[in-house]
Structure formats: structure tokens, C-alpha cells
């Protein structure tokens, strides 16, 4: 209360204590004090919301040679890391962040998170399953059709002004009815199977264990899977066992009429072997969303017309990225407020 000529400033003897200034609700304080290190400018909406709800540190604010110093300077404040498919909490980063409590990945694949180290330190990890399943499955089928029917090639041809005569074309190969094999019958693999079935494709798969889908033929090994299909779609997660799972033997089994589609991780496929298989026409065609050394795709493939190369866009739609961002934010909020995480990685 402000003293004026009319009003006395002395409170009455039996008055209540002076009211406190408006307080910040505890929840908001818990969130604002959560220091979050965002490893890469992966999504504008995510970044904006992290900034407004938490205490945001942007990893790229520091120059590449100043990163260690940046981490040292902020290590007590940073309790959370947000990474993605390409940039995530590896051993070196975890070691540099002694206050780290949670890694919330803007991705479903967490092969770049050092999980053993997180377990050792009691650091929780969350990812973004389910919300991106449809988009990734859509792209897998889109790449298969694009590769078999050579749609990007037709588009290049027309844009180059090369379409001069009406009867000018090359015959391509029908997608419907092809034998589709899926490597990894998880959420994404199943969604791919459902879509391919609508095209009259038969479905076979390889997974760590057989699944209860009697209409889908299970193969115990990848070479046999590849030998008995027309289109092999790689949809499993990357770990020590699955690294380079699609190797020369598998590609030879897939053969000169076979098509390889990869929407998983680049390192699931032996990329140098893939390049020579395509250049030497031992493999028929490929549709690739992921590569071993993103953002670099093998330049030797650029001159080929039987390859479709897209820049890791599996979940890159406005709708899905917002859903993924919201999931990251909700997980961080739950962590800050000591509530159960929504999508913890077991």
C-alpha cells in the first residue's frame, strides 16, 4: 500500500501479515529452472517452446572449437538434453554434463544415445514412438513406387525440356503384386505391411522373433528373406547386432531385379557395397532416406536413374514434427514435475 495524505500507512495492531508479492507457481518454477541443452536447430516450434517453458541452451551458439568451454560454463545448469537422429547424447557429451538427468530425443531411433552410459548414470531417456509411424511407413511405400515407376526420373526429364515427342518413354515395373519383404516388423514395419497389402503385395519379414501374423511369412535369416522377395524394406532399429545387416550377400540375394528401400538408419546397410552393387547392376534399384554419413549421400549414385535419394525426411511433415515436439516437451515437463514420463525408453 502506498502512503497518501488521506490514508495512514501504519497497519492496525491485530492485522494479518503483509501480503506476499504475486508468487510463481511451483510447477512453472520447476520447469523454468530445468536447463535444457538443444543439440541442433532441428525444429523451430520445438526450439521456441523449449525457450519459453524451460531454460534453453543452444549448443550451436558456441563455436565448434568453443564447445567444451560452453559445456563447462553451463554444466551445473544443464539437466536435460534434446537430441535427434543425427545429433545426440554420446559418451563424451554425457561425461561433460554431470547434472544431466534426462535425454529427450526428437526421434524414435536412439542409436546415437549412449544407453549403457545413461543407465550407469541413472539418466532417463525418452523418444518419440508412434506419432511418426504413419509418415515413415508412407515414405517407405512412396520410395518403393518412386523407384520402381521412376517418378523422380520422369520429373527430371520433363523439367529439363527433354519431352519432345508424345511416344517418348521407357517401360518401368509394376509395384502392385510385388513380393514385399520387411526387415524388422515393429510399429513401422507393420504399418508398411498394411499399406503394401492394399496393393496386393505378399508380405514376408525377418525379425528377432516370429510374430503372430500368419499371413506374413517369417524368414529366420536376411539372406533367405532377400532371395525370396522383389522389394526389401529396411525398417529395424540400429544397434550392434543390426549394423551392416544388409551386406553384400543380402544384396546379391536380392539381385539385379531387386529393389532395396531404407527408411531405418544408414548403417543398417553396408553403403560402399550398396554403391558398387548399384553401379555394377548387381542390384536393380534403391530408394534411400538414410545414409551412413548424413548429410552426405554417395555422389557416385547421383548419375543413376534407378536410385531415389531423399534427405532423411521420414517424419518430416508439419503435422508429425509438431506431434514429436509436443511429445518431447511433455516428457520434459513430466520430468520437471516428477510425474511419469510419457515415452521412456526401457
Amino acid at each position, binding site marked *: 500500500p502506498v502512503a497518501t495524505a488521506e490514508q495512514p500507512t501504519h497497519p492496525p495492531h491485530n492485522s494479518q501479515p503483509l501480503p506476499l508479492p504475486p508468487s510463481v507457481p511451483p510447477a512453472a518454477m520447476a520447469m523454468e529452472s530445468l536447463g535444457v541443452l538443444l543439440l541442433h536447430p532441428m525444429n523451430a516450434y520445438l526450439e521456441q517452446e523449449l525457450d519459453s517453458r524451460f531454460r534453453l541452451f543452444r549448443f550451436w551458439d558456441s563455436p565448434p572449437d568453443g564447445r567444451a568451454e560452453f559445456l563447462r560454463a553451463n554444466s551445473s545448469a544443464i539437466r536435460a538434453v534434446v537430441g535427434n537422429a543425427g545429433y545426440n547424447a554420446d559418451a563424451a557429451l554425457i561425461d561433460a554434463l554431470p547434472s544431466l538427468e534426462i535425454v529427450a530425443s526428437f526421434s524414435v531411433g536412439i542409436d546415437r544415445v549412449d544407453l549403457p552410459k545413461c543407465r550407469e548414470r541413472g539418466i532417463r531417456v525418452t523418444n518419440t514412438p508412434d506419432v511418426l509411424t*504413419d509418415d515413415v511407413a508412407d515414405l517407405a511405400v512412396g520410395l518403393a513406387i518412386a523407384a520402381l515407376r521412376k517418378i*523422380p526420373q520422369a*520429373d527430371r526429364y520433363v523439367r529439363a525440356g527433354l519431352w519432345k515427342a508424345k511416344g517418348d518413354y521407357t517401360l518401368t515395373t*509394376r509395384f502392385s503384386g510385388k513380393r514385399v519383404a520387411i526387415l524388422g516388423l515393429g510399429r513401422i514395419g507393420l504399418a508398411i505391411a498394411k499399406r503394401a*497389402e492394399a496393393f496386393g503385395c505378399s508380405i514376408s519379414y525377418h525379425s528377432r522373433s516370429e510374430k503372430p501374423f500368419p499371413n506374413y511369412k517369417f524368414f529366420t535369416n536376411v539372406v533367405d528373406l532377400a532371395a525370396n522377395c522383389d522389394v526389401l524394406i529396411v525398417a529395424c532399429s540400429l544397434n550392434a547386432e543390426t549394423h551392416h545387416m544388409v551386406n553384400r550377400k543380402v544384396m546379391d540375394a536380392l539381385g539385379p531385379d531387386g529393389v532395396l528401400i531404407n527408411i531405418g538408419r544408414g548403417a543398417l546397410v553396408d553403403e560402399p557395397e550398396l554403391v558398387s552393387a548399384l553401379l555394377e547392376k548387381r542390384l536393380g534399384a534403391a530408394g534411400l532416406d538414410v545414409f551412413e554419413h548424413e548429410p*552426405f549421400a554417395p555422389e557416385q549414385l547421383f548419375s543413376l536413374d534407378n536410385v531415389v535419394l531423399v534427405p532423411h525426411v521420414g517424419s518430416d511433415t508439419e503435422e508429425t514434427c509438431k506431434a514429436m515436439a509436443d511429445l518431447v516437451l511433455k516428457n520434459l515437463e513430466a520430468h520437471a514435475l516428477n510425474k511419469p514420463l510419457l515415452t521412456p525408453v526401457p
Partner: protein
Amino acid sequence: NRKGVALLAVVATLKLATMAAAGGKPAVLLLRPVDAPFAAALRDRFRVLDLYAPGQALPALAFVAAAAAVPEPPRATVIWGGVRVDASFLDAAPSLRCVVSTAAGLDHIDLAECARRGVAVANSGEVYSTDVADYAVGLLLDVLRRVSASERYVRRGSWAAQGDYPLGSKLGGKRVGIIGLGNIGSRIAKRLEAFGCIIHYNSRKPKDSVSYKYFPNVHELAAESDVLVVACALNKATRHIVNKDVLEALGKDGVVVNIGRGANIDEAELVIALREGKIAGAGLDVFEHEPKVPAELFSMENVVLSRHVAVLTEESRSDLRAHTIGNLEAFFSGQPLLTPVHADSLAQ
């Protein structure tokens, strides 16, 4: 006169040809180029009078007239979209009682005139339907998920230099309005349902066998759809069926896919709508004046351009061969055609 002499020469050649061929085989007038397997399959069964035979130099109508003048002239002909079957064509070959077209559409045939003369017409049935439906889905995924555009980005080294490509749009949950729910449209619907799309359609009449929402006209269809797919035949009623009003009703987030005929869309208005951002994008396999494509489209990132290849697979080639021969054999043995077309059926 020179023309008369040339005609006589051809008649003589054809006479010799028909005499030299094994007896008993009915004559077929072949008015489209065919690959070796198709040619062999035809020759196995018929006496083929081939417009595209090596050394054959007469233009089409003159060849037709010459063929009509041989003994046991052809009663059936195999044509494609480039052959206009109208009164003057039918006048040139009065022996013809059956036209077997290998084209996907029927806009090149005067069905009423054929009916008046009792000439049976067979079309390509469902030979192309699967491949065209697959291509339509491929084009739509390409436009929404920017497959071709982001591919260009990768191939010119921009992924490394400039970072991530801009986001696309999710297919699942989109309302897809299909114009024409025939053999092709219904296959497109079935495929897109598996991606979580909601199917709307316009057809001449609602179809009781489907649960998709019917719209009595394309304008209303567009107003309640996120995607418009043109899958209807081209005829008087469907020329420019997608016009300026329909594009406006579709709206600034809307996408158009055309695997029908270029003239189903008012192409000039489509280009304007794309230029002004009145619609979000387009996937086009056909154009009004092929092979001319409006050059303004070449610099647009939200458009996928293709060169009228939706039907062109190895599989549809061999299916077409089997189907065409099936229709010819049915005709010559007095059986009903496999895929007869009637004057009142606008094919969809």
C-alpha cells in the same frame, strides 16, 4: 495417276501377302506399332495387315482403304489413341465390324457412329487400371512428401551445404476427392484407405457398393477435400471439369493429381492457381497439349511433372497383349467381346 498406281501396287502387295500367309486365318488390320512379342502373337493367329510393316509407306487412311480392297478384307482392326475412328475412317473400311482399341481412354472413338453402323468396339478393360492407380498414389506421395523436390536438393549437393529440406505434409487423415470412381478410381480409393485417407468421390451416379461419401458435383467435392484426383474419362461433360472455381474451392492447402487426360483440367487456370498460391501443389502425368508442358511449372518446387507414363509397365504390356488377342479371338469365334464398349457408357 500416281496415287492410283501406288494404290494398285499396295493392293497387289497385300494380295500376295494374304496369299502367301497360311490359309484360314482371319485378317486383322493393325494400325499401331507393336513390339516383337505382340507381333509374333498376332501373326500366330491372324493374317496381319500392318500399317507399320517395314517398307510400308502409305499414310494411315490410304493404307486402310487399300486393306479394305483386298480379297477377304479385314473385319477387325487393332488401334491405339492416335487413330481417330469416325465416319470417314469407317467409310474407308466398310468391311470392319470390330474395333479393338488398346488405348486407356475412348475419346478418339465416335461410339455413336460405330453403334449406328453396327461396328462393335472393345476397349482395354482393366489392363491399365492397376498401374495407373499405383502411379496416382506415387504422384500424390511425391507431392505431399516432396520426394522429387528433395531428391533434386540432394543431387545438387544442397543437403550438405544448406541443411534440412523444408517439411512436407502428412498423407494420413487427408480427405481425398476422387473424380470418377471406375476401375482406376476405385483402386486408388482402396490403396489410399490403407494410408488412413478419407475417401470422397464424384461420379455420374452414386455407387451403392461403396461407403465413401458421394458428392453430386466436383465443386462440392473440392470444397470438402484436401486432395483432388482426376480419374475420369475425357468427354464433353468432363472437359475442364477441374476449372478455376473448383481450384478455388479446393483451397490453398489443396493438391491436385491428374492421371486422366490433360483436358480434364483447365491447364491455364491451374498454372495461375499454382503461381498465386491458390492451391498447394499438383502431380501431373498428363497435359492439354502434350508433349508441351507450361514452362512456368519447371521452376515450381510444389509440382511433380511426368510424361504420360502411368500405364507404361512391362506387366501392362504383356497384359495388354493377352487382352487384345482375347478380344480378337472372341470376335472371330462369334463369342461376346471380353470388354465391349457401348455408345452410352462414358467408360466410367
